[in-house]
Every structure is written in structure tokens, then in C-alpha cells.
């Protein structure tokens, strides 16, 4: 139940900053969309950390480390290439979870099955936001 509340709060928070300001330069428009994606990836990372902090932990520390390292790499890619990160980040999500919205083809997720199940709603939210980026 908690994760659904968290997901709803995350959705509302992201939706509140969804409206793109008018009259932005092309570079700023790309940065605006990229900022939204960074924030939704933060939601995925924070969900993993929150699950790890439960007693007993719902995600192991090793699994959480995998998520944090994935997140760090994804944000670094977005920061380095604000206009060209999408294929790389989607591929990394597919490799992490095998989520069908992120890719297709043979896939063995880097995360254990229970972690994929727990993070699935957050990954789905991230992929919805990513899909909105042109």
C-alpha cells in the first residue's frame, strides 16, 4: 500500500512540474524535459533506498547498490548528453528490469525477480515520463 501512495505522490509531484514554460530556447527545452526525467529516476532510486531501509529490508543492500549505481550512470549520461540520452537510458532500464516498455528481445534482468516486482510501478512511471520526451 505504501508504495502505491508513494507512486501517487511521485506522480502528482512530477505532474505539477510537467507544464513546459513558453518561449524557451531549444537547448532549454531539452534541459526542461531532461530535468523531469532526472527527477523521475530519483523516484526509482529513492523507492529502492526506502525499501532497503525497511525492517526487515524489502530490498537487499546489494540490490539497492545495483539500483543506485544504475541511477548514477543514467543521470551522468543525461547530464553529458541532454539531447541524446534516451536510447541509452531506456536500454539500461531494460537491462536492469526487462520492462517491456523499455525494450524487447531476450533479456535477463540484472535485478532479482522480487526486486523487479517491487520496483515495477516506479520503473513504469519513469518510462511513461521518458516516453513523453520527444
Amino acid at each position: 500500500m505504501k508504495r502505491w501512495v508513494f507512486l501517487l505522490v511521485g506522480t502528482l509531484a512530477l505532474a505539477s512540474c510537467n507544464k513546459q514554460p513558453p518561449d524557451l530556447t531549444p537547448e532549454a527545452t531539452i534541459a526542461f524535459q531532461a530535468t523531469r526525467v532526472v527527477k523521475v529516476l530519483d523516484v526509482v532510486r529513492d523507492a529502492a533506498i526506502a525499501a532497503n531501509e525497511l525492517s526487515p529490508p524489502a530490498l537487499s543492500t546489494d540490490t539497492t547498490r545495483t539500483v543506485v549505481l544504475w541511477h548514477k550512470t543514467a543521470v551522468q549520461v543525461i547530464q553529458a548528453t541532454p539531447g541524446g540520452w534516451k536510447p541509452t537510458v531506456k536500454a539500461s532500464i531494460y537491462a536492469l528490469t526487462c520492462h517491456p516498455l523499455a525494450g524487447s528481445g531476450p533479456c535477463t534482468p540484472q535485478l532479482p525477480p522480487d526486486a523487479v516486482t517491487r520496483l515495477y510501478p516506479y520503473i513504469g512511471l519513469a518510462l511513461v515520463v521518458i516516453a513523453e520526451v520527444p
Partner: protein
Amino acid sequence: MADRTELIVGAVTTLMPSVIGLVQTLFVNKNPEQPPPTSAEVLLAFNAACAKSLAADDLWLATHPK
């Protein structure tokens, strides 16, 4: 249980754009007198969001060494 979870996730994934659109309709432009951010401000916000996000990663990794 897995079927139920998949059903819920599928429903959420499908409905999410509608939920976001509804929230936007309800809550966006509550303060129309507030000027929209400039391009420079958006670029600064992007760099700040990346820096804050990466700092949180580094903090967690530092406190949870392998």
C-alpha cells in the same frame, strides 16, 4: 498474486497519462501572475537537479560500502 500485480501495474501504466493530464488541468496555472522560468533558469535547474541527484547517489554509496 503475480497476475494481480501485473494487472495493477498495467492499469497504472495505462492510466498514468490520463492522471497526469487531470492533475495538470486541476492544478497548473494556479498562480498565473508568477512569471515562467527563463531559459537560463531552466538550464540552471537542470544542472542543479543533476548535481543534487548525483550527490545523493554518492552519499548512499559512501555510507554503504561493498
